[in-house]
């Protein structure tokens, strides 16, 4: 039970009024002095007891009336009648044994909070079976549907697990985020030469994740050998310029990445189907040699934004003719790097090590002006109506009883 306006409970002191009236009327008893009692006979006690009872009923009704009125004014309402009075503490997998949260979780459990995992279907922590959440918003929606009395959510708030539109946290939920500490990690390490290792390190904290490339000596770190990629650039004379730009882009990659390129530039007519290479870059109006079964990039003019578009598993289309401006504008080098060196493992690792956090405040605080959730408002009106009906019924009954008594 909750009160919107607890100060109105002072109105309960008004209960003294009907009681006082009752007591006073009992005391005075309304004595009528009359010349003689000779013609009067005492009303038998049974009838009189009925009248007494009537008086008590009237007193009760009047007190009830005041009670309802006070409840109405003070806005007494209950959250328990329609919502289950279940309380949950919802943990993200991996935080159940976190020493920072252990005392809190224990105290909540003593307070009859059920411990659940923050995962699909919210399994009990005791079962131990859950995956880390991949979308908090979805889980919040699911929790809302459970209509719980109180929910405490303990999560690590990984930024990449908040997908989709931001929604306000309902009143019955409290969100506690585990603060992350700054964290450094190595994405990949490749030996580029005998005495040098190319190391891509990452540094992630709540604010953001940053990457850095370092060179270290091979005995400092375990590294895998870098790859050598052979590329054939085939162009007609018309696309001489495009070929040069392509080669320049690959050269840039050669310098900045730990990989080595073996670039062979040929005329399209020189192209031999027996040539072998990891990649063929075909710059010609003529169609691309169908006999080639390796990876290839060929020119195919299209009005799309991305400069390189995948057409089949191994084939990529260059959608624009190249010049310096287009190359710079469309980030040709980066696009090439992404295609030539797809590094799913490194990406995965970087994602795993990503410690960026969705700030707790963003969840818990929303515009205070309209902060009362609709559900609660609806609730109050419902109770107000109830009190109003009570008042009405009591008032009518009181009037009827009072009328009967005076008859």
């Amino acid at each position, binding site marked *: 039970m909750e009160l919107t306006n607890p100060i109105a409970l002072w109105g309960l002191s008004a209960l003294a009024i009907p009681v006082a009236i009752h007591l006073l009327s009992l005391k005075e008893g309304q004595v009528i002095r009359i010349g003689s*009692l000779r013609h009067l006979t005492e009303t038998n006690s049974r009838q009189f007891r009925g009248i007494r009872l009537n008086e008590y009923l009237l007193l009760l009704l009047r007190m009830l009336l005041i009670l309802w009125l006070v409840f109405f004014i003070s806005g007494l309402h209950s959250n328990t009648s329609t919502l289950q009075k279940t309380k949950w503490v919802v943990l993200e997998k991996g935080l159940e044994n976190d020493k920072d949260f252990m005392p809190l979780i224990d105290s909540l459990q003593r307070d009859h909070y059920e411990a659940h995992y923050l995962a699909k279907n919210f399994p009990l922590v005791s079962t131990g079976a859950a995956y880390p959440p991949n979308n908090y918003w979805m889980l919040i929606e699911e929790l809302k549907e459970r209509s719980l009395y109180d929910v405490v959510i303990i999560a690590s708030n990984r930024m990449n697990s908040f997908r989709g539109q931001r929604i306000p946290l309902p009143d019955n939920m409290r969100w506690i985020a585990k603060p992350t500490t700054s964290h450094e990690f190595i994405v990949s390490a490749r030996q580029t030469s005998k005495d040098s290792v190319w190391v891509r390190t990452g540094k992630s904290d709540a604010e953001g994740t940053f990457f850095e490339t370092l060179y270290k000596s091979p005995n400092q770190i375990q590294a895998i050998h870098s790859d050598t990629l052979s590329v054939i650039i085939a162009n007609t004379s018309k696309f001489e310029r495009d070929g040069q730009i392509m080669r320049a882009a690959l050269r840039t990659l050669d310098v900045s990445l730990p990989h080595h390129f073996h670039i062979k530039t040929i005329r399209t007519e020189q192209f031999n189907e027996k040539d072998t290479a990891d990649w063929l870059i075909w710059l010609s109006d003529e169609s691309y040699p169908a006999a080639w079964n390796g990876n290839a990039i060929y020119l195919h003019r299209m009005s799309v934004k991305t400069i390189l578009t995948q057409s089949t598993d191994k084939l990529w289309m260059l959608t624009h003719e190249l010049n310096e401006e287009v190359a710079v504008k469309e980030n040709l080098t980066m696009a090439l790097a992404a295609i030539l060196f797809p590094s799913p493992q490194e990406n995965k690792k970087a994602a795993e090590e990503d410690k960026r956090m969705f700030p707790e405040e963003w969840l818990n605080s929303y515009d205070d002006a309209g902060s009362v959730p609709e559900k609660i408002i609806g609730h109050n009106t419902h109770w107000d109506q109830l009190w109003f009906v009570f008042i009405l019924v009591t008032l009518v009954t009181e009037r009827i009883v009072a009328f009967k008594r005076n008859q």
Partner: protein
Amino acid sequence: MNAEIKALLKPEVINTVSGLELVARVIVEGFMSGSNRSQSIGSGQEFSQYRSYEPGDDLRQLDWKMYARSERYFIKQAEIETNITVKFMIDASRSMAYEEGGLSKLHYANIITAALAFLSRKQRDTFGLFTVNNLHTTVIQPRFEQQQFLRFLNELIRVKSEGIWKKDGLEILLDHHGKEMIVFITDLYDVESDILKFISRLKTSRNEVLVFHLMGKHEMELDFGGSFTFEDLEQGGRIKIDTVTEQKKYSDRITHWIQTSRLWMLEKNISYHLIRMDEPVDVFLRKFLIARKNLLY
């Protein structure tokens, strides 16, 4: 006139001599206006004797018809008109303190007594006052004096309703002589029919006894509406009554009581008048006097 009287009918007015006199005057003159028949023309109508005229006699008393017959002067003498004596007796027991509309029964008795006494004085009747309870008995013997009325009113306002009806020692009230009218104002609440016994002793063959029985409206109808505790003013007993359920029975009983009292008095040639306190005093008195006049003539 009625509203004027009503405005005067307050305890603070009635409890003073001048106030009570004013009330009596207003009430009586209210219905006496116009009927201003002189009471003392000549020496009355009842013929007594003739005597010879002597110088100095009033010529108006000369009987001219006699002179026409006998050519002698005679003075026609009539018997001096005897006025009756009115004795007002008021039951001043505690039960007369019953109040309705701010006035007690005793107040009503006082008003009626004062008004009738005022009338008596106007008609040159002698009047006296007797108030009785077991603590005090006031006696003002009937006299015809200027001061009688003031003395009368003075005693009247001093009367208090207390105690009960006095059983014995009321011989002074029963001291009859000559033609008299006794007005006895009471509520008829007594112990062991003391008042009825007294009334029956009042009546003789020569006098006239009027009993004014004062009853309140609520007292007769028990229309209080609800449950109340009733207290006996004289005996002090208390009983609880649901007036709603008892009303019918009670009013039947009261009606029966009044009926039997009236018949009882009728048998004894005593005239009984019920005064309801909700009825204006002047209205009652007018009705009473008209009825009386019709009875006499």
